[in-house]
């Protein structure tokens, strides 16, 4: 493995002079091992400098702990960044229907991700993806929010 990968090829900027940064070093080292393993698995020799975006993606996956449940459902410890409660989105008018469609109940937290997917909180606090909200309305479009982008019925 390239020595300078640990300090992102910049030993001047990324140093640990007093040895008091175990977490940072552990994360970067683990990322380096992950990168090397990925490269080896792909038959690629990795010489480049890891970019912030790569680290961000990798770290995000570790933090979100994206995983599959026993049934293979896509579950996450939390919904995707930028998700909002369904009541605060244009899908608010479809809240009743969606809860019936996905088998959610009064106490279940339903949020909409930035790509308009429905995520429902499970009893253990994890979230499951139920796909595009547009699949849950007859028109494929949101009914709108009360008093804002929807006429009163």
């Amino acid at each position, binding site marked *: 493995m390239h020595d300078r990968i640990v300090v992102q090829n910049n030993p001047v900027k990324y140093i640990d002079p007093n040895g008091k940064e175990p977490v940072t070093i552990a994360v970067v080292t683990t990322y380096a091992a992950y990168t090397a393993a990925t490269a080896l698995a792909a038959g690629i020799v990795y010489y480049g400098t890891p970019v912030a975006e790569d680290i961000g993606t990798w770290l995000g996956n570790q933090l979100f702990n994206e995983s599959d449940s026993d049934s293979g459902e896509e579950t996450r410890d939390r919904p995707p960044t930028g998700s909002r409660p369904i009541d605060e989105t244009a899908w608010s008018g479809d809240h*009743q229907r969606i809860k019936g469609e996905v088998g959610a109940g009064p106490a279940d937290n339903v949020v909409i991700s930035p790509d308009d997917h429905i995520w429902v909180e499970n009893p253990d606090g994890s979230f499951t993806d139920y796909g595009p909200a547009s699949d849950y309305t007859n028109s494929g479009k949101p009914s709108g929010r009360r008093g804002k982008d929807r006429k009163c019925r």
Partner: protein
Amino acid sequence: MANGFLLLRFWHPTRDLSYFSSLLSMPCFRSWKEGTPRQTPIGRALTGNYPESYWSSRLEFPCKAGFSENLNFIVDKLVMEEDCIHDLKTSGGKAELYLQFPGSINNGGSIDSSLLKKLGDLGVDLLFEVFPGM
């Protein structure tokens, strides 16, 4: 006029619950079988399989008229199939009646003690939720 909805829902760890449509003569709103691939209502594939079976039927009621008529209608059907409901429950299943009220107008109703007793004897849970602005 805003309307409310009354959902009758069953869950079971393994059983195919589609027989409830004919058993209760009620249209299925959404159902799936345990172990089958997950999908959205229009058939778009989702990751994984369903961990349990689900069946639901949905009745709409005008809030002006109230929910009592629909609730009695469903409970009477359930009482007629009491053995099946008990069998579902004792084999690990779950039965629910889910009342969804629109929150845009004043609405309400009463559930008398005899109806509550029927629900209790059947082992059917009663859920309420108000949806503001619906």
